[in-house]
Structures are given as C-alpha cells and as structure tokens.
C-alpha cells in the first residue's frame, strides 16, 4: 500500500495540483466571465461582416488571423502523416488494394446511392456557411468523407498523393494572399477587403473564402486517406 503510494506519488501530486488550480479558477469565475464580447458580436456582427451566421463572421472577419493558422496546422499535420508513412512523394498511381470481397455488398450498394447526396450536401454546407450552421471546415470534411467512400465503391482507383498535396499547398497560399488583400483597400490585414457596405458585395468575400477553405480541408483529409490506404501492403 505504502510502496504503491510512493510509486504513484507523482501522479497523486499532479492530480492535487490540477484540483487546486480548478478550485481557485472557479472562485474567480465571476470576474473572468465577461459578456462584453458576446454583446458586441450580437449587436454589430451582422452589420460589420454581413454574415447571418455569427460564427462564420467571427472566423472569417474578426479572427481571420487565427483561422489562417488553423488551416496551416492541418497542412502541417497532413505533411507529417505523409512523412511518417514513409512513402516516396514521387510515387505515382498506387493501386489501392481494399479487398472487395471483404467489404459487404450492402455497404457498396448504399455507398453508390449516398455518394452524390453527400457531395451535394457538403457543397451546400460550404456555400451556405454564412447563412446557416456550417462553413468551410465542416463542408470540406463531408466532401472528404464522400471521396473516401468512392474508394470502397471502386477499389482499383488510382490517385497521386503528390498531386493532391501540391494543390493543397497552392490553395493555402491563395488563402493567405486573399486574406492579406485588405491592406490595399482598408489599410489593415486579415479582414474583408471590400469597402462597400452593401451586404451583397461583402457576401462574395465570405462565400469565396469558405469555398477556398473547404477545398483545402477536403484535399488535406483526402491526402490522409491515401496515406492510410497505402499503408500495410
């Protein structure tokens, strides 16, 4: 009993420390919990960003700088996975060997029906990101899932991972350049470059940015799938 306590003493100390931090933080919660930002976004969000969905307004206008680094994190993660799985980047036309007899026929049949619907739903979520819940990241993930299902329907599909990765990098550069365009029109970087206060004009920027982010996320997740599919055989 005593020896085990000494053995795991470090863990117990760590738990006590975390509990102490949690307790003292909860005591100060009233001071920390401030609704100023929330009230500001609710009052001025629609007027500033022309986005009905305030979440899209925040991550594409107020906090665009943060969103750029989120997109960069995904790019770094994809590059790391491709690097760890040790395949040559010049390797072309790898044959995927998903065993067709192991995949149930029912799954393949349903995948054929669901695949176009998933694609359309993904594009709807991307394009409608400023009006309804969703946006570039969520829609891109749905499109990527539809692409993954394609490999179950057709196991012999060929894909060049290096091509996907290079397109993703180009799209990321386009996103960064597009986000910095506002320095020429408004004098500050990382905001909406259109100076017109008309909501229709400002919406163009939101839709374009959502489409770019959606394409980037879909390509990144697609590259991860190809790394996983090529692993093993």
């Amino acid at each position: 009993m005593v020896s085990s306590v000494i053995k795991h003493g470090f863990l117990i100390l760590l738990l006590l420390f975390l509990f102490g931090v949690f307790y003292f933080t909860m005591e100060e919660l009233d001071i920390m919990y401030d609704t100023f930002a929330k009230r500001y976004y609710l009052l001025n969000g629609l007027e500033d960003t022309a986005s009905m969905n305030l979440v899209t307004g925040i991550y594409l206008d107020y906090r665009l700088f943060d969103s750029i680094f989120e997109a960069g994190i995904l790019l770094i993660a994809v590059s790391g996975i491709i690097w760890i799985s040790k395949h040559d980047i010049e390797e072309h036309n790898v044959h995927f060997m998903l065993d067709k007899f192991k995949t149930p026929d029912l799954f393949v049949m349903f995948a054929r029906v669901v695949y176009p619907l998933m694609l359309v739903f993904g594009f709807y979520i991307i394009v409608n990101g400023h009006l309804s819940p969703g946006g570039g990241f969520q829609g891109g993930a749905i499109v990527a899932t539809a692409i993954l299902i394609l490999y179950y329907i057709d196991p012999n599909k060929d894909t060049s991972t290096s091509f996907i990765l290079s397109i993703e990098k180009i799209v990321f550069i386009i996103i960064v350049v597009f986000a910095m365009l506002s320095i020429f029109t408004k004098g500050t970087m990382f905001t909406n470059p259109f100076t017109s206060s008309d909501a229709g004009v400002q919406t163009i920027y939101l839709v374009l940015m959502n489409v770019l982010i959606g394409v980037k996320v879909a390509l990144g997740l697609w590259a991860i799938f190809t790394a996983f599919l090529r692993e093993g055989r």
Partner: protein
Amino acid sequence: MLALIEITAYALQILLIIIAIAIVVHKNNGTIIILITSFSLVTASLYVINNAPDVAIAEVAIGSAIIPLIYVISISRQREFIVLDRAMDDFIRKTFDKEGDGYRLLRDFSEYYKLELNISNDPELCNYDPDKDQVICEKTNVDLIIQKDEKTGEYLLKGKDSSVLMHKLEELASNYPNIKVVRFKDGEFGD
C-alpha cells in the same frame, strides 16, 4: 420541475459515461468502432442542445464518418499474415494426406491470433539483393520469409524485429528442432 430538454441532456450525459466505459472495457475491435461512432453522435446532440450547431456538424463529420472509416481501413490492413515461401519443398506444401511441419506451425500461429494466413511462393514478390545482403519487397508488405539453410538443413523463418507477433512465433517454433526464427531490423528487411 425540470424541463424536457434538461432531462434529455442529463440522460445523454449519463449515456456518454456508459459508452466511454464500454469503449475501454470491450475487446472486439468492430464493436469499439461502433461505440466510438455512437459516442460522437451523442456528443453532437449535446452540442445541439447547448445551441452550438456549427460544432455539432464538425463533430458528426469528423467523429462519426472519418475516424471510423480510417479505423476500419487500419484494422482490415492488419488482419492478413503474408508469408513468402522460398524453400519450395515439402516443409510447407500441403498434400492430400500430409501437411508439412511449417504449415502446421504457421496454422497454429495464425489461429492463435485470428489472422488470415496467406502463403505465396511467387518469386517476383521479393528479390534478394546480393550486394547489400538484404531482401527487398517492393510490391507488397511481406511479414515472414521462409528460407532453407543448405549447410545445416535448418529452416529459417525471417521476420521483422518490430513485429510483436514474432515472440509468440519463437515460442511455438521451439517445439520443432529444425526451425529457427531470425529477426531482422526493419531497414534490413526491406520494407
């Protein structure tokens, strides 16, 4: 008096804890994948109850579509045990009345781990590089190579050092006097 939505939220949170414990306790991989999927579905409905539909869509797309499919791919990759037979004699060959020692050993081994045994003697799968003294397998990922030592008459089972299965194979092979298990580092094996 609690509103209906609050009762639902509490029920979902209790369900979340039950699913989390079940994920840790279960042993079957397929069941665990389904449980992970249902975990993120329950989480997504909790997000919707707390007025966060954006996060809920992301949770559904990532947690219950992409992650289970990646798990399914990874697990189905690992179920096959590919053996390359370069001895080409009655060590492996399965005839109508008799099966070789090696086949019996590998069958016991694959039954123990519930693997699908795939024995091939296709010489094009791997080729021996005499300059570097290593075996290069380009087309597929071979788990085990069988070779015969011409001087001593021993059969050599060459496997990867990193594979956790090799320990059990050595244990099984100790019953057979003419079988020797050799471990290679991954680079030398020619992955």
